[in-house]
């Protein structure tokens, strides 16, 4: 079990050319906290002052008053905090899907490097700090301390409950939270918070992305298999909503409750091979199997084993994602290369969600030529803000609930099959709003009009 620790990391003053290389070879300097966040908080104090003062004064003046020597060039420092709730999740069925220890963090590092390359030209420096904890309360407390010390931008990979606890703990501070890990619709709907933005799409967005493609394929008769976890049930609910929206019919729903047992045991395929056909037997004529198994307990066992020879979509077979390590669309090749050089592993979905959050801050700071938290937060919520994120079009935040609009990939293990929204699904503002809960349907009230 890992204990609480904080990490400080910055692209600092390396030359641009050497930047990627330097980052690739140097390991992250780990600051073992041992006793809470005080060391980091003290360390961060001067920068925090600079940020606070910059609200009233130009950043240059604020910086000059800080610890920087008078002769140094005036560099605006912008601190971004990544908060990770270390959770004990069951191992995935496939060895290929085991998350690396720095899942998400790799994306934060790449985005910080990208921000700093731009920052070099306009005298801005982005500093990435990380806090990790397996106890939600302690994580919230650690983040609050860091925010008080000047980190106004908090990227969170945590359970939905923790995201809400963080939002409420920071609600009176000049800070913004980016939810990069939870697709729960309620965080954007009935439990929305004005100080939270979401770079990960909602379950209803993912479901609509899939549903549009199935409509295009005329796979209108679905056989849905739902897993036992609460998340699986929420995803199934999203699929039901999508089916209704796009005129598909759920022929039958079955809940998969069989306990697959240890995943690491030798063999086991013999039993699965017997079990899956009988589990999927005697369903009325249908076009496609839709699997709702976010828990990853059985989904991968469905393809090729159904009683009827049918395609499998959902969380197995053809699945939805914000990113995939094989995507080369829209200039993605160099993006993938940069990530791999820096992190020595594949570029995963959570990395991408975090990258979008950290880049949002960078983009706002570049456009506003400022490190002032209030100013950047306001700008990110304005219609002027737009993010280029290797999706072939600009991404923007929905004004009514802080959700980032984005095309969603439909992929297999190897590569993409298509990208939604599908052609023909029209919207009077942006076709991206054909994915998920749209403004007229929202239950979010925190954002006002």
């Amino acid at each position, binding site marked *: 079990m890992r204990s609480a620790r904080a990490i400080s990391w910055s692209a600092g003053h390396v*030359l*641009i*050319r050497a*930047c*990627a290389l330097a980052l690739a070879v140097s390991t992250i300097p780990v600051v073992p906290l041992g006793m809470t966040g005080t060391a980091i908080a003290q360390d961060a104090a001067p920068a925090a002052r600079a940020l606070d003062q910059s609200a009233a004064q130009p950043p240059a003046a604020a910086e000059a008053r800080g610890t920087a020597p008078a002769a140094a060039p005036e560099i605006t420092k912008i601190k971004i905090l990544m908060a990770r709730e270390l959770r004990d999740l069951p191992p995935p069925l496939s060895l290929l899907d085991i998350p690396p220890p720095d899942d998400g963090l790799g994306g934060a590092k790449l985005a910080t490097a*990208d921000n700093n*390359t*731009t920052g070099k*030209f*306009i005298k801005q420096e982005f500093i990435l700090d990380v806090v990790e904890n397996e106890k939600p309360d302690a994580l919230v407390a650690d983040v609050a301390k860091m925010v008080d010390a000047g980190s106004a931008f908090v990227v969170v990979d945590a359970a939905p409950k923790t995201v809400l606890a963080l939002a409420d703990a920071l609600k009176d501070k000049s800070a913004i939270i980016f939810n990069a890990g939870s697709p729960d619709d309620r965080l954007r709907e009935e439990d929305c918070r004005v100080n939270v933005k979401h770079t990960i799409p909602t379950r209803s967005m993912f479901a609509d992305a899939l549903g549009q493609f199935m409509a295009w394929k005329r796979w209108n008769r679905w056989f849905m298999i739902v897993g036992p976890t609460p998340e699986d049930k929420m995803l199934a609910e999203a699929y039901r909503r999508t089916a209704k929206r796009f005129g598909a019919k759920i022929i039958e729903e079955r809940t998969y409750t069989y306990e697959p047992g240890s995943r690491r045991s030798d063999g086991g395929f013999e039993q699965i091979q017997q079990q899956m056909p009988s589990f999927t037997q005697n369903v009325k004529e249908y076009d496609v199997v839709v699997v709702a198994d976010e828990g990853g307990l059985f989904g991968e066992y469905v393809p090729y084993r159904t009683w009827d020879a049918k395609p499998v979509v959902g969380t197995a077979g053809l699945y939805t994602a914000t990113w995939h390590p094989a995507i080369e669309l829209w*200039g993605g*090749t*160099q*993006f993938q*290369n*940069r990530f791999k050089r820096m992190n020595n592993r594949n570029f995963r979905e959570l990395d991408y969600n975090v990258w979008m959050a950290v880049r949002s801050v960078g983009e706002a700071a*570049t*456009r506003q030529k400022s490190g002032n938290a209030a100013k950047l937060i306001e700008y990110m919520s304005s219609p002027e803000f*737009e*993010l*280029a994120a290797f999706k*072939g*079009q*600009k991404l923007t935040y929905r004004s009514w609930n802080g959700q980032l609009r984005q095309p969603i990939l439909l992929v297999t293990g190897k590569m993409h099959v298509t990208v939604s929204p599908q052609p023909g699904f029209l919207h009077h503002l*942006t*076709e*991206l709003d054909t994915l998920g809960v749209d403004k007229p349907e929202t239950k979010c009230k925190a954002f006002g009009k």
Partner: protein
Amino acid sequence: MKYARTRLIAPAAAFAALLMTVTSANAFKVFVSNEKEQTISVIDSVKLEVIHTIKTGNRPRGIILANSNKWLLVCASDDNRVEVYDTKTFELVKILPSGPDPELFTLHPSGNPLFIANEDDNIVTVVDIFTGKILSEVPVGVEPEGMGVSPDGKFVVNTSETTNMAHFIDTKTYETVENILVDNRPRVAEFTPDGGEVWVSAEIGGTITVIDAATKKVKSKFSFEIQGVNKDAIQPVGVKFSKDGKKAYVALGPANRVALVDPKTYKVEKYILVGQRVWNLAFTPDDKQVYTTNGSSNDVSIIDVATDKVLKSVKVGRYPWGVVALPE
């Protein structure tokens, strides 16, 4: 059979008549790089058809002429090199170093050196095209792409797609002297023929930023609006000016149109429907035709500059990317 033959006669006669009317023009060779096919299609500007296909290295993208038009230079991006072809024999002459992942390049107006954007390495590589020596590596922003050179040869402007800047590089010192923020994902930088302005297209931003070349400050910015086309699909990439500076053509990517812009007023005068995902453009040397590379439909559209109508679409290789016309 008979029926089929008689049907063929009428269009053939019409085409012959068309040929007669245009044969008075000079025939130019137009070279089109096909990104996914490792080939260059050679089009005859009078016949309006592909007359030859050159086999190249992997992922040919940027394409220009050099050495008094004797050479055709091609960025073979996935082979990390620039390939030099003879424009008469279409034979490979030599290979130039390029730095990693060359995408676009521009030649100094004096004929040498070559400035190459290395998309995967945040640098612009400067190469002597005769000796093959790398003269310098200039650090720029993330994902360098567009390369424009001022008519007087003093500055090269490079765009960085993820840093969203236009970097002015002094061609004597090989240092960036100015970094100008533009809109998201800048693709192409093009100087006006008089050298007074640099136009930078922003693919995701959907705009053209006009930079005053003398003061190196943003002078104006404009965008595009096409009825019935989603704004997100209007993604400007290629920009070309007629030599007299009176017409500017801007390729609008997945909007499948080329905008004709008045370079004085920055007003769009017309949207010309071309093939799918139009990226780059080239004038014929007489300024009478403009060729557009339509990546998704595997063809080029040939625009008649006098009427601003598409004369013909010519099928080329897969994912046509760059285009340049050779004076004959």
